[in-house]
């Protein structure tokens, strides 16, 4: 197991300890449980709080998006496992500034059930909550079952927009609507070339013969829609962009935000090779890129692969993307 770790059971806690030591001015733990991080300045009086969460192993997702103009708090699970409802509830209490709390996270069973339980607990303490699920992975379900799709890297757009809306003082209903609107217009597809090794068991997240690729792979190595011999960067990009533009029904004259996201082991150089082709492919359809992100935004430990996300833009969405934001892992200024 090519991992630089100590005891696998300590992996998540030691990682969080590192984050707290490195960024004491930006994030803090509200109580004794290190699995809960909130903005150093939380709660913000009168502003909507945003709580996210999910399994570890996806840095900068999820904990990286806690900061000004982003999420207010996060509940952190073990590698690829959900946090507990209690942890989500603690995060909720710590970020509630009196205007309610939005739960914004990816559509995975364990997370959903735990966040739902937390919402029940919050209700008992009169903290209103709303839930919006990232469900941008077009390969996980056909368009007819859009609402069952898994959430992957494209949730970045929803964090950014909802975070900006909360920061400017929108109400809980409004922030939830912004998040929902962005999720609705986001589509992502990934490709995997090699699996992740789970630190506790040493098991591989999936099996893939050498020289093969899996298109549509999920962020935990969930099977995709096409497995076959590895293609060129341009062929892969064309496949993915084709699927995304169809899913979003993009038309000539539309504007989008693009996220080319590395899953872990794939070099940044390759992401730029792909970005180049995304640009060409969209330009060929007369779709303009108004905002772009290239790098590691949602990883799967040391998995080799990448994903491409598109957000169909209107002026309101673009303005929210461009609003300032700052976390230890993400900056917009």
């Amino acid at each position, binding site marked *: 197991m090519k991992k630089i770790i100590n005891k696998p059971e300590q992996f998540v806690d030691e990682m969080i300890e590192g984050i707290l030591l490195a960024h004491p001015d930006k994030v803090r733990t509200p109580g004794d449980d290190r699995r809960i991080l909130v903005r150093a300045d939380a709660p913000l009086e009168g502003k909507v709080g945003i709580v996210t969460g999910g399994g570890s192993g996806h840095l900068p997702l999820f904990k990286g998006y806690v900061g000004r103009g982003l999420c207010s708090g996060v509940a952190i*699970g*073990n590698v*690829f*496992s*959900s*946090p*507990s*409802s*209690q*942890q989500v509830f603690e995060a909720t209490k710590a970020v509630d500034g009196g205007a309610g709390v939005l739960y914004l996270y990816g559509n995975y*069973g*364990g997370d959903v*059930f*735990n966040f*739902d*339980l937390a919402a029940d607990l919050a209700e008992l303490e009169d903290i209103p909550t709303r839930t919006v699920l990232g469900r941008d992975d077009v390969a*996980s379900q056909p368009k007819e079952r859009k609402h069952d799709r898994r959430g992957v890297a494209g949730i970045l757009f929803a964090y950014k927009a909802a975070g900006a809306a909360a920061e400017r003082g929108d109400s809980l209903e409004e922030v939830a609507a912004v998040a929902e609107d962005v999720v609705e217009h986001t589509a992502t597809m990934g490709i995997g070339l090699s699996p992740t090794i*789970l630190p506790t*068991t040493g*098991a591989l997240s999936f099996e893939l013969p050498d020289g093969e690729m899996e298109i549509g792979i*999920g962020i*935990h190595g*969930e*099977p995709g829609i096409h497995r076959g011999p590895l293609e060129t960067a341009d062929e892969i990009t064309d496949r993915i962009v084709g699927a995304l533009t169809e899913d979003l029904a993009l038309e000539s004259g539309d504007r989008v935000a693009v996220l080319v996201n590395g899953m872990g082991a794939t070099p940044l150089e390759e992401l730029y090779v792909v970005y180049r082709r995304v640009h060409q492919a969209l330009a060929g359809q007369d779709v303009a890129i108004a905002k772009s992100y290239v790098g590691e935004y949602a990883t799967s430990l040391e998995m080799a692969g990448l994903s491409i996300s598109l957000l169909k833009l209107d002026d309101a969405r673009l303005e929210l993307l461009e609003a300032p934001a700052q976390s230890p892992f993400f900056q917009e200024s």
Partner: protein
Amino acid sequence: MRADQLKSAIKASLAELVAYSDELRDLDQALGDGDLGITVSLGAGAIIEALDELGDDATPSEIARACAKAFANANPSTMAALVAGGLLAGSKAWAGRDDVDVAAAAEFVRAAGENISQRGKSQLGDKTILDAILPAADALAAATDGREGLAAAVAAAERAVLETQNLQSRRGRASWLQERSIGLKDPGATAMWRYLQSWEKAGVLAEGAR
């Protein structure tokens, strides 16, 4: 069964359940992420600890609620959240009771199953824990005696578990495998079956217990 007997019985049965955690781990490894063994062993330990701390005057409903809370936080996961929610629903069904019998047990298990079905948007045949819970509730409801009811519930759950092998997983992580999930037992349903068996093994039901 009085509240204090219930508490001891739960503890004794959970002590038996832990023996199945490797089996559950392996089943979840094949269909999911392999953490169900840990969820069950840590969850059992956490409940035992929580019950030890509970006052002697705790009602059956309070006992169930303590179980729910302990299980929810021991190893966060789908099973932790769904089972905890189910236990909470069961505890509500027991509100006001001082002791429980096989009819109460049936009520409890049914309430838990319905809650899981609702929260999990899952139905019988989706190849989940529900496939074992609902038949067990039916078996308990049809019985008049505790031991007999338990035996019938174990048998019903076992049948259900074997039946899940022919099904495709429609919920949770296992559903990602699509057709490849056919042929394997559902880990959650197996956990329910093994838990009922643990009650038998622990021998905590007195002869003729109602």
